[in-house]
């Protein structure tokens, strides 16, 4: 795909038409108004690093964000003979492996749905887990991966982790397509819950928020200490087992005391995976407590992640 063709008509919005803010020279640190990116007056000093300013800047640079996402996506499939088809093949192959492997090995699926093939159960959780996995990884690496750019040109740094959690949505889309095919194939034994299916975008949004929130934390820290890069695969692996992807949540509820289950449900991906399975397979949706604790954690991670990222990003060009 070419970056140039899409959406050339709506391009003049963005930072050009955003309201111009002129700095008011109040001689009190932190009480100064700063202008938007690329506009009239910019004050560069320690007070510049305020979060509200960084967020407004990032909002004004939507066009750059779109380009970054398009670049991410198109570079991934470039120079592969099969191109974007890979985005479809990879999940298909994995599904085939699951089916074969667990066809011989037996199942860990929900006990109350014995007719549900384990591969389908597993795949329905993988659809959204894979998204979380790759977008968190990319967001955590986003500052480090662009250090060449960061030391040469100014742009709102927030765009890097943002683009990292948006571009894997494309792969999520392909995974979902395969999932739809699977459901059609198994329509005799699996019935989606149509009402809950309409909530899927909300659960996906929650996964985006979780990946962004944790990704902001990790990206900021990773720029300063590379320890993050070492620890990240292990952390994601642990999170995988702390999420009901391989197994149904009942397993946890049966084996652990209530307080441990509450702790477990703080993992926002518990809600997300359960929500996906509720829609796709007609399983039990996450309960109110589960949803609220998950959403609470996402909101908390986002708010603190933005603060941490903003702090870390200020000095990033000096340490990368």
């Amino acid at each position, binding site marked *: 795909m070419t*970056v*140039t063709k899409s959406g050339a008509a709506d391009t003049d919005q963005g930072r050009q038409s955003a309201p111009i803010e002129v700095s008011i020279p109040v001689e009190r640190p932190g009480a100064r108004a700063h202008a938007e990116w*690329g*506009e009239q007056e910019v*004050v*560069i000093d*320690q007070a510049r690093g305020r979060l509200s300013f960084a967020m407004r800047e990032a909002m004004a640079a939507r066009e750059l964000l779109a380009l970054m996402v398009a670049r991410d996506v198109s570079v991934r499939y470039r*120079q592969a003979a099969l191109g974007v088809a890979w985005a479809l093949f990879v999940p298909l192959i994995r599904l085939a492996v699951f089916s074969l492997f667990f066809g011989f090995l037996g199942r860990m699926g929900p006990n109350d749905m014995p007719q549900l093939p384990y591969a389908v159960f597993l795949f329905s959780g993988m659809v959204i887990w894979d998204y979380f996995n790759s977008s968190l990884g990319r967001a955590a690496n986003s500052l480090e991966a662009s250090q060449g750019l960061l030391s040469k*040109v*100014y742009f709102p740094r927030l765009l890097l982790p943002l683009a990292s959690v948006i571009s894997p949505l494309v792969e999520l889309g392909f995974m979902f397509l395969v999932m739809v095919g699977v459901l059609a194939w198994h329509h005799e034994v699996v019935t989606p819950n149509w009402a809950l299916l309409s909530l899927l975008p909300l659960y996906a949004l929650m996964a985006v928020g979780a990946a962004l929130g944790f990704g902001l934390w990790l990206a900021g820290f990773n720029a300063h200490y590379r320890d993050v890069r070492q620890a990240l695969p292990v952390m994601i692996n642990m999170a995988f087992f702390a999420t009901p992807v391989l197994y149904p949540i009942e397993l946890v509820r049966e084996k652990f005391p209530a307080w441990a289950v509450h702790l477990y449900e703080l993992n926002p991906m518990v809600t997300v995976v359960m929500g996906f399975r509720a829609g796709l397979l007609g399983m039990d949706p996450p309960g109110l407590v589960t949803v609220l604790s998950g959403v609470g954690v996402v909101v908390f991670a986002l708010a603190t992640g933005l603060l941490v990222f903003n702090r870390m990003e200020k000095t990033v060009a000096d340490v990368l």
Partner: protein
Amino acid sequence: MSKPVIQVEHVSKRFRIGAKRSLEDNLAAAGLRSLRRRLRPGGDEIMWALRDVSFEVSEGECIGIIGPNGAGKSTLLKIISRLTLPSEGRVRVRGRIGSLLELGVGFNPELTGRENVFMSGVILGLTRAEVKRAFPEIVEFSGVERFIDTPVKRYSNGMRMRLAFGVMSTIRPEILLVDEVLGVGDNDFQVKSRRRMTELVESGRAAIVVSHNPVDINRLCSRYVHLEKGEIFNVAVIPPETRERATKAAAQFEQRLLDQVEARKQRRADAGLEDVPPSL
């Protein structure tokens, strides 16, 4: 009298040197300075890359920055272009900044020339519509039209540089920051890019040029700031005579480059080779 376009007010930048990047240091970076003070009252060894630097650039003015290596010239440009924050003091900038600090910013080798032009144009502060408008000029200037849809990784170094310079110079920023006046590519293109640079400095609202070449400073700028060890050593006006002399010297240099191009063409013609435009 309008406000100055760039105001550099008591700017200082310090770095801790040789300090091991401990958790504690980074806590300090994360804003827990008071905690740090409690933990280590002595403090680190500190290096001042810039110390209390103040000057202004007014409308239509070009300021040269000179000084030996390590004087803080690049750090100053980095602060003005917002890559790093000053430790103390502030810089006020009125207008869109474009810096020629580095060529090929944001170029991704996998993307085509066309895609890269858009990417780096937008990163450098244009809207996509503006890049679209400037696109023919960029391609024309850099002379890579045949390869514009080829991934940049297959470009020669010269082609990549020319395209990058084309993007930069077509953006026409209001405020231009130049780190060394570069001539890139072969003789022909060097002259072209030097002339374009001169034009940019002269047509913009303001410019700051860092250079080790006194000829470039003298012909482009009306004043210069001399930095030594991070502090202002001297600020002086460049007299018009000096400027004229430097302009002549630069013109002679460019003419020499062009003469070489001519001579080479002649040799090729004598040898019976067909004439290939040098910028392809």
